[in-house]
């Protein structure tokens, strides 16, 4: 029942080649498990499928990164050729003249992409954690992202069927954890992490602080302990 790990390296040591990994964060440094990502880079597991909102906007262009700070995000795993497939909503630079490694690897045919609208991505991840294998959504109807998907009408409006996403591991950043595994986040840094911990076989969470049960007040717990497997302090 011990969830606290003493090092980032140890916490990611059993990630295997070909694993499906969810990586938290909206795109900036807030909510991104920078140390776990470095540990996974050093660990070297290859042919990973990464599920993430972006392919790394903070490291590419300072998106959501404090002035003068440097940033690490899942982009370094792609730089390091560890990723075989990306499932994301915002995989490339907003500027066509600024190319990230995802885009160059993609053009070389070295990496696969499943491009998913951001809300559909979040909902598919939630579904994976909530025992819902598939659902219908209006998002993407009539666009190329709905090609090959089942379309069905409800009350005269068209919807497409989307399926749940699950992962072997999630690398998530939260603000505080207690030793039971309860988590709290700061501000806008819940984003994908608070959903990904629910749908991963093993959720690994990097936090600023680890406290005793009760030191995060019950009403401030965003993620109940049952979703959390491993905790490492920054």
């Amino acid at each position: 029942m011990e969830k606290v790990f003493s090092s980032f390296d140890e916490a990611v040591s059993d990630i295997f080649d070909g694993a499906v990994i969810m990586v938290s964060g909206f795109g900036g440094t807030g909510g991104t498990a920078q140390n776990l990502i470095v540990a996974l880079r050093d660990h070297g597991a290859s042919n990973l499928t990464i599920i993430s909102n972006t392919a790394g906007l903070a490291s590419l262009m300072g998106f959501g990164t404090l002035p003068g700070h440097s940033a690490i995000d899942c982009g370094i795993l792609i730089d390091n050729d560890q990723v075989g497939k990306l499932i994301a909503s915002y995989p490339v630079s907003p500027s066509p003249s600024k190319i990230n490694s995802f885009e160059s690897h993609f053009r070389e045919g070295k990496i696969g992409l499943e491009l998913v609208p951001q809300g559909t991505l979040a909902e598919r991840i939630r579904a994976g954690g909530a025992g819902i294998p598939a659902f219908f959504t209006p998002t993407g109807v009539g666009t190329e992202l709905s090609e090959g998907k089942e379309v069905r009408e409800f009350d005269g409006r068209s919807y497409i069927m989307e399926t749940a996403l699950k992962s072997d591991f999630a690398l998530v950043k939260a603000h505080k954890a207690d030793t039971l595994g309860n988590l709290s986040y700061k501000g806008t840094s819940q984003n994908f992490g608070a959903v990904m911990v629910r749908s991963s076989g093993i959720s690994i969470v990097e936090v600023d602080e680890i406290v005793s049960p009760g030191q995060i007040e019950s009403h401030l717990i965003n993620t109940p302990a049952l979703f959390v497997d491993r905790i490492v302090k920054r």
Partner: protein
Amino acid sequence: MLDRLPREVIAMRVARELKDGDIVNLGLGIPSLCSQYVPEGRTILYHSESGVLNYGPMAEQGEEDDDLINASGQFLEPTPGMSFFHSADAFGMIRGGHIDVTVLGALQVSEKGDLSNWMLPSRGIGNVGGAMDLAVGAKRVIVAMEHKGRHGEPKVVSECSFPLTSPTCVSLIVTDIAVISVEQEGLILRETAPGWRLEDIQNETEPELIPANDLKEIEI
């Protein structure tokens, strides 16, 4: 040569569409400027898919916090009554019809209100982000953009040639020369930039514009 409205004035015109109590999600670029120009006495609650409702203005230098950003990655000031949520809830709000207005940029808008704003075909890959969810989910979609593209090509088109974000979702187009509403009967030209006549605007627009009965100059 006729003057085109600056970005700030486009944003100002859009801001007049926002009503007291509206929940509003602003996209990147010109849309993001709208919040500065809301007429006094109207309370607008801004939603961002980064996971916040009722955020404040951009943070001052030295006050930035990377745990408080909007969907463009800009740092925000906290506000009394601001609330936070995860991405599944953020998009539940959007898809569930809880956003009154979204203001989005566009690459192309068609006569029927089809929107293309996520991929340049020449690049072959693009970022869809939250655009499709917003286009489909918000009660009202307003496009704020320059009337023609960088190479002079029309952006108000008969049919979108770029990949669609969503069909028939746009209700109002505000550009640097015109305000156009998308109606059953077609595109109605409601307002013009000062000095611009119907035919000047039509020249830069692919589908036919129908002048409104009360066609007038944009008032800010």
